[in-house]
């Protein structure tokens, strides 16, 4: 497991797929997840294969997650904050997610 070499940063916490993740202020979401031993953050929109943080600098778009309902956010570019609700980016986004009944209307 990863370790932290110093105690910098106030303790904060958010959830990932419903599980509480302890983090420090100043962590990116990706850093906090990796520190907690979580390194699968999305499933490929092409094949469904599991992927996780790769570059940690906003280049590769591998660490995509859903943050407070907003899909395809780069976990390495979003600062962790108390109370965020983060979930796995499971493949392609749903364009109708915020449309009341839009999906049902299509069915």
């Amino acid at each position, binding site marked *: *497991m*990863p*370790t*932290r*070499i*110093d105690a*910098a*940063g106030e303790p904060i916490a958010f959830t990932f797929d419903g599980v509480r993740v302890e983090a*420090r202020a*100043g*962590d*990116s979401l990706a*850093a*906090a997840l*990796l*520190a907690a031993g979580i*390194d*699968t*953050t999305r499933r*490929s929109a*092409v*094949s469904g*294969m*599991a*992927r*996780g*943080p*790769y*570059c*940690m*600098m*906003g*280049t*590769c*778009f*591998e660490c*995509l997650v859903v943050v407070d309902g907003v899909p*395809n956010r780069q976990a*390495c*570019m979003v*600062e962790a904050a108390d109370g965020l609700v983060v979930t796995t980016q499971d493949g392609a986004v749903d364009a109708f997610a915020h449309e009341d009944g839009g999906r049902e209307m299509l069915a």
Partner: protein
Amino acid sequence: MSAYDVVVIGAGPAGMAAAVEARGAGLSVLVLDEAGAPGGQIWRGVEAAGPSRRGVLGGDFAKGADLAAAFRASGADYRPRATVWNISPEKVVDYSAGGGSRQAAAGAVIVATGAVERPVPMAGWLLPGVTTAGASQILLKTSGIVEPDTVFVGSGPLLWLVASQMVAAGVPPKAIVETVPHGRLMAAAKHLPGALKNAAALAKGVRMMWAVKAAGVPVHTGVTDVAIAGATHAEAVTFKGADGAMRIETRHVALHMGVVPNPQITRLLVCDHVFDTAQRAFVPVLDADRMTSRAGVYVAGDGGGILGAAAAVLTGRLAAMGAAEAAGRPVDEGARGAVRAALAKDAAVRPLLETLYAPAEAALAPADDVVVCRCEEVTAGAIRHAARLGAAGPNQVKSYLRAGMGPCQGRVCGMVVAELIAAARGVTPGDVGYYRIRPPLKPLPLSELAELGEAEPVAAQ
């Protein structure tokens, strides 16, 4: 739309130095940076890092705090968490910040967007648990996080730097698997006399390697046939070494094969580029003032060719002096001469490093079944087939296969795709070219773009 004499993109060593210099010359300066604090990648988190973390990261890291302080005090209009997504040929810069997009008209643009790690496609590199070596270092710098199970794979100074910093933190990595081919040291040795002009850099390199080995970290050198094993997560690194086939169990692999200029903005602006065979990368063509083939667009730092952080500060100053001169401000020729001399001295170590750490051929020629475009999952074999079908370059491969069409917009696969086509056609990457880069430079919500739109609709068919 606001207007500035200079818009600097990036707040790393080059961007900060450029901003400070341009402010000193009396220019109005806007600095746009994606990160939340200045420092770029090399000095990432430098303002926030406490004494103990700075101690682990070393003296060169701590130097960044002084420049960051000077930058904060420079009077430049600094916008953190701002993502530039388009620059017009007329130098109007579009950027997204705080959920909305804004535009800034620039007299000059200084591109200081640095380098990205060269992709190292190999079997298993898509698996969770596999990152770049740079990613390991970012975790250390920004959060003080280290993973003792890490196996570093590849070559280059950064790989040794991160490993030595982990040693200094008291958490050495599990192993180093170095792909530098046998014989490289001899080839590099001829550059040693020249490199001694920057003896400090050489000495630092030797100290890093010594520290890692002294800490008892297993170092496997001259290895070939590296692959990462695992089904849904990295489980082991396998390779051929001095003692035959080897397997190291690990769930954390950090890849590195050097860094290459981040090409997105200079390609967006269709600046001239050449393929630098020593750096094995495309670099924008720059004049002595660091200006590109597009008037008023300058490149500071590693985006203009890999020279490292110390040189980035110097090239940042040169670019700002050039922009100031073009804006009709007087430039101190003595100071400019001193910067050029310091740059020449600093660069003396590059031929040795470039020869020693030139990427292993296997990294440029992955097996047919290895995925090269991570976003769209396009294999090396498919790209080779496309080249045989008649694809002259990366843009035709993109059309055929969707390579480079995913959210990373070709940032990760671009170099490898060019190398694969060049090899298949028996020419150089310089002959086949690179992806045409188009806006937005980063994915941008449709609503944010729409808000910039005029009320009247585009003429319908």
